[in-house]
């Protein structure tokens, strides 16, 4: 399930699911719903994204912001997501081994078409405000405030 939650100046995006991956997938739909009615997007093309982060919260924000980058750079909207989350040891620039959380997302959508897509507003970026990515009361939640 995805939803927008109240914030006085901006918009909160929240995805919930039975796994954290599913919560991430739903949260990505919530983000896209700020920009466009996702029912008008057909999953014609797929794009694979691979990212890592220091923790699940940072990874969620990076993932949402990457979708906004692709929207501007490739002029693509995605409405369906298949996400795999994992962990990996990564060697940083100083040679230290760090355990990072990783994300592989397959995103399905199509090129922006102003005549076809029901456009709304163009958000600026996802923030660390009200950021949560984890389990609460038996369900997984991925959420943050998006600067609009």
């Amino acid at each position, binding site marked *: 399930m995805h939803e*927008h*939650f*109240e*914030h*006085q*100046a*901006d*918009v909160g995006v929240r995805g919930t699911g039975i796994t954290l991956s599913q919560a991430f997938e739903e949260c990505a739909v919530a983000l896209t719903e700020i*920009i*466009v*009615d996702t029912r008008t997007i057909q999953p014609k093309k797929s794009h694979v994204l691979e990212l890592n*982060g*220091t923790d699940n*919260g*940072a990874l969620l*924000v*990076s993932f949402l*912001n990457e979708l*906004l*980058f692709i*929207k*501007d*750079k490739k*002029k693509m909207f995605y409405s369906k997501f298949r996400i795999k989350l994992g962990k990996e040891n990564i060697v940083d620039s100083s040679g230290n081994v760090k355990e990072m959380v990783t994300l592989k997302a397959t995103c399905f959508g199509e090129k*922006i078409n*102003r005549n076809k897509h*029901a*456009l*709304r*507003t*163009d*958000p*600026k*970026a996802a*923030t*660390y*405000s*009200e*950021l949560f990515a984890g389990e609460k009361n038996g369900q997984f939640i991925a959420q943050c*405030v998006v*600067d*609009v």
Partner: protein
Amino acid sequence: MQIKQLSKFVYELEKEGQMRLAPRIFADNEIISVLKSEQTNPNNSLKQLQNLSTLPGLKGAVCLADVHLGYGAPIGTTTVSDLKEGVITFASTGYDINCGVHSLVVPLTAKEIKEKRKELAEELFKTIPAGVGIGGKLKLNKDEMDDLLEKGAEYVVAKGFGNKKDLQLMEENGKIKGVDPKSVSDKAKERATDQVGTLGSGNHYCEVQEIEKIFDTSAAKAFGLEEGGTFVSIHCGSRALGHQIGTEYLPILDSAVKKYNISIPERDLVCAPINSEEGQQYFSAIKAGSNAAFANRQVIGVLVKRAFEKIFEINEKEVNTFYDIGHNTAKLEKHLIEGKKREVLVQRKGSTRGFGPKCNEVPLQYRKVGQPVIVGGSMGTNSFILKGTTKAMKETFGSTIHGAGRSMSRTSALGKYTGEQIVLDLAKKGIIIKARSLKGLPEEAPEAYKDIISVVEIMHAAGISEKVAKLKPLICVKG
């Protein structure tokens, strides 16, 4: 949390816990009551102000009358940090780097505009690239982007968008010095390659306005404003370049908090010591983003001038740039700190610089009067032109409001209003709205904002920025 009233329009959030100082809030009783009532929500403006006040090296923090909830820092806030001990904070400038207002004075009466209002609205809508996925006329490669980031508005003037006189009428002459283009990633440059001269969406707009009332005749004369005249306000920022700079520095600052062992009460206050490598790189990137915003608004300003030339019997050169000023900024400025004038880092989030008379930073032609401040309304509402004061230099680090400030969330506004109804209602008041997306319009409904007249009155009565002119919207173009 305790709030003490110092005078009719000045309050103080009392220092407690880890707070380094007691920030002042310029507000009236009603605004303070609303701020207090919002404390039922764990994420609220007063809590954000309290959190912000704990940051290392903080030398000053003020909230202006348009204060409302932000992310990390409340909107309508100015913070001042010591250059040796202080930090540069993500939330105090935000993603929309150097979002601001570029403004023009048109040598036509509002009466003349009204006679061709529909044609002008159509022309502006056609001319100004706006909305989701829309690029501008300029397509820049990486080297050209580097040039733009270093030169700001000067770069686009050299490309034929305006003239050197325009630059004198911009904050920092449209160019903040000291940019290292390498502080901005290639990815950020790629994202914005076709966005110079685009309006964007959300609360960004281009509005043609009637100068409805003059409050201060001598200041208005110095500003070149006449009752019944025509004014244009263009509200936008650094577009996706600024957003991508923020996106990429957010995890860098997150790591810097751990690396330098900085204690922050909430993760959304990620920051880095100003004098650290991360802090210096981020500061350079903000300057680069600011320059991109100056360039962006300058191009749109010229497109608007050309639209007037097309519809009316005037030359684009007869439409004068009035002023360009940002309200999401980070800059080095000199202010009185603990009795001494010192250079400090000033971050303004939803707060406008409003310097008083005699300040060298104010364009020569306005210097006797004080810096012009453009306070933007929301579609149907008035906007205002104010002037900065000497008192502001002492009490708010030369800062004032940027707008009315939101009073209703975007989700509530979407549930209450429809784009079609807003367009019809405003048409009855003689205001033409041209928007790429009617679906996004309700978020910016006039009713979603505080009453701009009372917000301006507070700042005027407090002596921080004084009323010069009131503007009434005639045409509003949105993304």
